[in-house]
């Protein structure tokens, strides 16, 4: 929250005049600031020349804008002199208009140049910043393609997504605004001091009196507000969690009439949020008035001391005016630098998260592995296969199975028994720990991953379709497929009929949530996709509960059609499939606990037999009412 708010504020102030609400909010601290920063800078290295232009533009623009008050002061001084002379009634005396005009003309040039440089700097920075984050996103995307499945299974999607969107966005905003702001702040600070010194060392000293004051205030307030921001953040987190939980459980709350309990909890958290929230807002809100008070003290000091000095003719009147402007400029960069330091910190933290993804261990390169074996038959053998998702939990130990071409293997077991483990190994989504898996006697470890995967077709229950037309989705496996081939595949998968009843037929767009077609229809589409791919070995998940009976029958027919002439691994729920299988693998709690044919397993009287009887036989006995 704090990050996105900072970001919001950033976006709202294209030139840095916006609300300074972000000051005092605790920024996330990166673990290794220097290393990450150096790496971030490396991303900018292709734009060295642009950056040099940007930096020099920023410096020039700032220098020019710093010069102007002093020059303008000269005009005022001249004015004053002329005025005084006139008041004193000296004949022929008056304001030296030609001198003033000269100065004003000079100032116009300065102003235009300063603004022009600042424009060029922002303009060039837009390209650099956006191209840098473009490269960053591209790198992540390429990296994602090289990461093993393990990475995907062990990270929440939302988290990965947030790194690529929010974090990269954060970096982009900082590059666009804060970096040049930092430069101009620093230049301003130095420049102003130099300018002030050239005008009057005594006055500069007086201005400096206010400096520690604003520094102390900034630090003290920021420190104090951090405490309340942390409390606010905590309450906000609790509140969000509560709201999320209560709204997701709305049905249960209604069913059990517990609205009051939920409300009471909500009110309590809400009240806590209020009490820490207003304090955080208040304390961070007083930093600006306090600093402007300090700056006003400086203002008064300048007026008074300057006035005294001017009356003693030790200072020009225009110099007072210049000092007033300088002292205003002087206080701004201090707050701004503190602010930017905060932003920079959270940016580096963002960059660190992005780099963490880029540093994840990749799949081993398989450049040197052999390509596709020609004319695959589809004979699969597991010899002494050992596997576990982590080193200390071995799920499969010394597994030996041999599946001949055209045979069907059924994988059965209760929900959550780890039936997808086998899929993961066959497709080389995960690599085995020991032993070997061969296809047509060739070790899959010696083949390119892509080659292994191209042998397989996969129809899983969590159907994945992308937002595109139905046609594109079926042709996913083969972009060059003709329309006739697509229709034919759809016909084989019994999907042609329902597709034609859709208003746009094959050109129907599947929307983001894919809720414009039913779950069963989605499954038919994935079957069509597999048909078009025409794999030698098939891995499929039989449809279960989420499909209506009529569609289920269609899916069943389509699957039977698809399975013909291929080697099949089926995650089976249907007894007829199980009984007809050449080999049944029984899984529970992630382990393969039994294997054999239906009759063999029944004779064994083990888990399978128990499962089989409790499902189908028990229900016939009359001692159960429910």
């Amino acid at each position: 929250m704090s990050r996105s708010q900072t970001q919001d504020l950033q976006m709202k102030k294209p030139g840095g005049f916006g609300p300074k609400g972000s000051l005092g909010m605790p920024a996330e601290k990166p673990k290794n600031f220097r290393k990450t920063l150096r790496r971030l800078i490396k991303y900018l290295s292709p734009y060295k020349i642009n950056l040099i232009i940007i930096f020099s533009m920023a410096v020039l623009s700032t220098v020019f804008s710093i010069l102007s008050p002093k020059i303008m002061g000269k005009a005022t001084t001249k004015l004053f002199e002329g005025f005084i002379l006139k008041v004193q009634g000296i004949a022929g005396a008056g304001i030296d208009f030609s001198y003033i005009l000269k100065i004003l003309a000079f100032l116009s040039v300065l102003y235009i140049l300063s603004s022009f440089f600042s424009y060029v700097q922002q303009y060039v920075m837009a390209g650099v910043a956006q191209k840098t984050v473009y490269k960053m996103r591209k790198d992540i995307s390429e990296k994602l393609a090289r990461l093993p499945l393990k990475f995907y299974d062990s990270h929440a999607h939302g988290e990965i997504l947030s790194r690529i969107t929010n974090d990269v966005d954060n970096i982009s905003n900082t590059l666009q605004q804060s970096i040049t702001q930092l430069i101009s702040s620093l230049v301003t600070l130095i420049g102003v001091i130099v300018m002030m010194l050239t005008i009057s060392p005594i006055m500069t000293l007086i201005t400096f009196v206010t400096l520690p004051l604003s520094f102390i205030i900034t630090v003290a307030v920021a420190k104090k507000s951090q405490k309340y921001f942390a409390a606010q953040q905590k309450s906000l987190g609790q509140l969000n969690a509560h709201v999320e939980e209560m709204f997701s459980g709305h049905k249960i709350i209604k069913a059990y009439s517990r609205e009051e309990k939920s409300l009471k909890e909500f009110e309590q958290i809400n009240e806590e949020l209020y009490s820490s929230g207003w304090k955080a807002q208040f304390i961070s809100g007083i930093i600006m008035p306090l600093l402007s008070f300090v700056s006003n003290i400086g203002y008064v000091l300048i007026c008074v001391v300057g006035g005294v000095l001017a009356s003693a003719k030790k200072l020009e009147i225009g110099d007072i005016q210049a000092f007033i402007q300088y002292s205003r400029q002087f206080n701004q960069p201090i707050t701004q630098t503190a602010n930017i330091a905060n932003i920079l910190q959270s940016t580096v933290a963002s960059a660190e998260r992005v780099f963490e993804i880029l540093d994840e261990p990749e799949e081993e390169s398989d450049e040197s592995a052999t390509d596709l074996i020609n004319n695959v038959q589809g004979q699969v053998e597991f010899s002494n296969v050992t596997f576990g998702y982590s080193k200390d939990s071995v799920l499969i130990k010394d597994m030996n199975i041999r599946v001949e071409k055209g045979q069907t293997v059924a994988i059965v077991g209760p929900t959550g028994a780890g039936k997808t483990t086998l899929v993961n190994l066959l497709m080389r989504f995960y690599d085995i720990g020991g032993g070997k898996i061969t296809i047509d006697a060739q070790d899959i470890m010696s083949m390119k991953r892509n080659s292994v995967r191209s042998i397989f077709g996969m129809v899983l229950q969590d159907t994945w379709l992308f937002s595109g037309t139905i046609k594109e989705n079926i042709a996913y496996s083969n972009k060059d497929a003709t329309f006739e081939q697509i229709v034919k595949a759809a016909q084989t998968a019994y999907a042609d009929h329902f597709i034609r009843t859709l208003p746009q037929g094959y050109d129907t767009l599947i929307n983001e949530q894919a809720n414009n077609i039913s779950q069963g229809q989605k499954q038919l589409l994935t079957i069509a996709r597999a048909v078009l791919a025409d794999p030698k070995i098939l891995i499929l998940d039989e449809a279960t509960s989420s499909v209506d009976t009529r569609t289920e029958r269609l899916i069943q027919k389509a699957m039977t059609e698809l399975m013909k002439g291929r080697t099949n691994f089926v995650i089976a729920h249907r007894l007829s499939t199980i009984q007809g299988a050449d080999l049944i693998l029984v899984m529970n709690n992630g382990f393969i606990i039994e294997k054999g044919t239906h009759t063999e397993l029944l004779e064994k009287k083990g888990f399978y037999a128990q499962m089989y009887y409790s499902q189908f036989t028990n229900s016939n006995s009359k001692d159960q009412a429910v």
Partner: protein
Amino acid sequence: MLKLFKNLKPYSLSVILVFTLIFVQVMAELYLPNLMSDIVDKGIAKGDTSYIFKTGAFMLIVAAIGVGCMIAASFLSSRIATGFGRDVRKKLFTHIENFSLNEFDRLSTASLITRTTNDITQVQMVLIVMMRMMAMAPMMCIGGIIMAVSKDPKLSLIIVFAIPIVVGAILLVARKGIPLFKTMQKKIDKLNLILREELIGVRVIRAFNKQFDEQERFNSSNKELTQTAIRVNQIMAFLMPFMMVIMNFITLAVIWFGAKRIDAMSMQVGDLMAFIQYIMHIMFSLIMVSMMFILIPRASVSAARINEVLETSPEIKDPHGNKLETELQNQRGTIEFRNVSFSYQGAAEPAIKDISFVANHGKTTAIIGGTGSGKSTIVNLIPRFYDVSGGNIFVNGIDVKDYTQKELRDKIGLVPQNTMLFSGSISDNIRYGNPSATDEEVAYAAKIAQADEFISSMPQKYDSQISQGGTNISGGQKQRLSIARALVRKPEIYIFDDSFSALDFKTDAKLRKELALETVSSTVIIVSQRVSTVMNAEQIIVLEDGKIAGKGTHRALMENCPQYREIVASQLSEEELK
């Protein structure tokens, strides 16, 4: 957004005070240059040092008054804005708690969550900024103009020329920038969509060896976004330097024309210096106002989303007055559906049509059918999560609409399809069904639900904490706990909506056996897709496309209901059909 700000009413006094304080502060701020010009014109010009000191001290007092006001205003505005946020949040939450499932369907749970959290935070933030900056900017602008005019009305004519140029520039950039900002948002959304698809579909993508095509898809979208982002930032790059040029040229103009006026002895130098500072205040306040144009549209989108919720009134309301009839006492829990039809909002087809049946006290009624056949709809109508579109539902002989929602739901123990547990201990979760249940009753319910075994294997037994969404226990364990939650209630009616699906067969069988003994004096409704779960019920209702296709016992249905036979055939093998 204005509508939402009506909730500021209890704070109206504070708001007025904030405005007054800011007004004083602005006046103080604007008075300083005036004093400075006095120092120049009266002090320096005449060499009067004591006058300079006196005025300086006065300036300090003025500045102190200014800062005092501003801090007080900040104090008040923080309290107002966060208080406002708290009030609206509470109002919204209370309002949503009264929603029926209908409103949840329509507005979507996820969106309701964002509205209660992010949207309110957004509005609250803008409110603070508005009270701090926006109140100040117009006052500063107008005050600055007044002061400038009072210093020298003729010189003030410059402002008349300057303001249209500044406003014009802001509008120009806004007109070019805002559509581009919108396009950029769309492109960001698209990039996110692609990325999300790639994350979810990683297995399929790899299975089809499509990593590189996907990368290309991502990258072309990435490129498009980058181009737009560059364009947007290039346009925004123009705004600030342009403003600075205008402001600086106005200053130059002031000096030039001011010099002429001084030459004509109609103005003093100090006045000119003050005048320049007034002009600066005016211009900066204009820029601040332009900032508001970026802020307000965002907040008003949030405000509109909040208002939409507040304006949605829950469809289901409790009846007024007392029930006319008295409940049947001897057959508690009896449910009757009489010609019930129901359509979900905006659906073309009714989800269920003309459903009539009686579920009797002490008996089990099972409902079977495919997805979309209307099973869950029937279940949702009994606790009146939705109101029927036609026909009537009676519980204990009284129309469900004549009960208060609490009265009706207190009779029911519902075990929903998607088990939902709350963060808290296991005993908290079971006791959710009946807050006054004793420890023994909780343990007993857990035992019947076959949950005691895994609970006692946990280190803290019944005090073990369940994380939000119950992610630290398995699906089957969740289901058992939610069954225990219903049991501890000892309700007149049990509803099991596909509640045994995650249990392994052994546990399932055992649980149902013990459950049968426990529920003898209640009405039981079981929804399932598994024939083995329903076949022993006293009454089975077969649903197809929202209509009753058959009603009776397993045996009777096997004989006269082809749809039932079809379901059975698809699930059981030939030999079990005997």
